[in-house]
């Protein structure tokens, strides 16, 4: 164990990636994630790694595609508008069964939007990060420490399942400083990559990294195979935290920075005698559908809180499947919901459910 250090979320993500064996970072500056790129620019040359500032987000994600094809741990980071530009490349990376890590430090949208924290890219991350039938792993840590711990897992699972992984953070988590400890792994966990295009070495048939299948039956087969892998991931890789849920009558569902606010609000609700708890999805894909569905048998109602107009609430409703009412409270455009506001919503829910 190393000592506790105080770090900004963005910088901590970068340091964690380096410790996870990432030596190839390609990016483009955008607020509020730029400290991550700056940290990489400072560190990578000293450890024989690559930090390359691309001419665009589009180029950056394709550089990631190229480096990932070579079998190395590659990553990029951006914020909402930049992630939209990366959508094309992410679809190709998924379609080519390549692993990589993408960080989205979300800001308000749509369009140029704003630069303050937001969670309005939930649909984009879990539903539509590019064209075609595919999913990516989506992690939603809620503290700087959890962001650090997630990075190594995200790389490892991306390698294991040969697919892109995303850490969906936001401007608050990226900009804030909290104490972190880097749990030093002896060696980053790695996975063999016999598919990598590293040159045949005259020893094997050529490897091809490709997402083109002109025959529909062939394309269907590759997509169906990929979705079998997705089913396995849904079984094995779901992560969720349940906070004060043992005796809860009301469940607040929130992820990332918003979950911290939800916890404060739930504590305040408990002080007022309302038995509330928090279900915090840590993986947004795969989603903790089962946990929420089971909770629906115990609680009276749900409240989903997001920094958006209501995106994850779709998944909560799908999981609850009509068993109990699902309420929503959100702020958007860079406004962070306050614990007092959320408490008010919990009280409303508790009153309304009596």
């Amino acid at each position, binding site marked *: 164990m190393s000592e506790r250090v105080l770090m900004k979320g963005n910088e901590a993500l970068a340091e964690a990636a380096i410790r996870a064996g990432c030596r*190839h970072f*390609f990016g483009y500056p955008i607020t509020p994630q730029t400290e991550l790129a700056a940290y990489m620019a400072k560190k990578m040359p000293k450890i024989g790694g*690559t930090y*390359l500032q*691309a*001419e*665009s987000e*589009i*180029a*950056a994600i*394709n*550089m*990631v*595609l*190229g*480096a*990932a*094809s*070579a*079998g*190395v741990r*590659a990553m990029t980071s951006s914020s909402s508008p930049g992630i939209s530009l990366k959508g*094309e*490349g992410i679809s*190709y990376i998924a379609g*080519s069964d390549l692993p990589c890590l993408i960080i989205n430090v979300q800001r308000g949208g749509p369009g140029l939007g704003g630069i303050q924290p937001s969670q309005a890219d939930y649909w984009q991350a879990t539903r539509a990060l590019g064209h075609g039938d595919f999913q990516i792993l989506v992690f939603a840590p809620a503290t700087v420490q959890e962001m650090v711990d997630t990075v190594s897992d995200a790389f490892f699972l991306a390698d294991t399942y040969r697919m892109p992984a995303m850490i969906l953070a936001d401007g608050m988590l990226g900009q804030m400083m909290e104490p972190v400890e880097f749990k030093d792994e002896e060696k980053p966990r790695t996975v063999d990559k016999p598919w990598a*295009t*590293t*040159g*045949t*070495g*005259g*020893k094997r048939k*050529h*490897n*091809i*990294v*490709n*997402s*083109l299948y002109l025959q529909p039956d062939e394309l269907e087969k590759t997509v169906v195979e990929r979705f079998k892998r997705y089913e396995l991931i849904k079984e094995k890789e779901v992560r969720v935290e349940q906070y004060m849920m043992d005796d809860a009558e009301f469940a607040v569902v929130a992820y990332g920075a918003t979950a911290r606010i939800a916890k404060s609000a739930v504590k305040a609700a408990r002080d007022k005698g309302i038995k509330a708890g928090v279900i915090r999805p840590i993986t947004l894909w795969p989603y903790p559908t089962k946990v929420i569905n089971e909770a629906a048998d115990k609680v009276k109602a749900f409240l989903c809180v997001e920094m958006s107009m209501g995106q994850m609430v779709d998944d909560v409703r799908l999981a609850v499947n009509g068993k109990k009412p699902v309420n929503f409270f959100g702020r958007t455009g860079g406004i962070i919901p306050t614990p007092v506001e959320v408490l008010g919503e919990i009280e409303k829910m508790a009153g309304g459910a009596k």
Partner: protein
Amino acid sequence: MAVVFERTKGLTDVPFHYCPGCTHGIIHRLVAECMEELGVLDKAVGVAPVGCSVMAYNYFSCDMVEAPHGRAPAIATGLKRALPDNVIFTYQGDGDLAAIGTAETVHSAARGENITVIFVNNAIYGMTGGQMAPTTLPGQVTQTTPYGRDIKYSGNPVHVCEMLATLDGVALAQRVSVDNNLNITTAKAAIKKAFKNQIEKKGFSIVEVLSTCPTNWGLPPIEALGWLRENMIPFYPLGVYKDIDKGEGKENG
């Protein structure tokens, strides 16, 4: 009996899908022969584009990556940064390199990215059925310039080698043609130099190869070669636009 010609090991035993008379086949062979002759086939990684040569990954016997439209130089950059001792090349058409991928082309050249770019210019979009390309000639009829390309309306063609020759990171920018044996010999020498430059870490090398598209030009193969000579070469003069070994400036070849 003495063997005077052999199929290069740089190509797989897969039949090309190219139209009869299309010169992609010749260019593929030249690229493959150059890699074989330089002894780099086992450490080469090629990047295929979107366009007629989208399935080039099936034809080259080295490792291959298929890129999104226009992004081949960015992917080659990622590969080269991860595998600095390997030989990385892209094989791109005019729409891929000079329209949708202009930014990737210009910036990988400006960075002096140590890669080899084979640019096949046939002045038309072949795969999608004959639309205007960034290199379509003034007055040229295509599916999307049915009255001939009006440069006042559709803009001017892009002279890729001339443009890239202005960038400091470029080691070689040469335009060649494969319309006759002499030009094919020159083309092969240029392609070989473009690979040698990479091996010697000289920077970005691009060889622009003027090519035919009999199908979409609506001409029989032989006439297509004549059309290339009469129309393309005067507008896109062959020659070395930049060679850091010989100083700056164009030498007609």
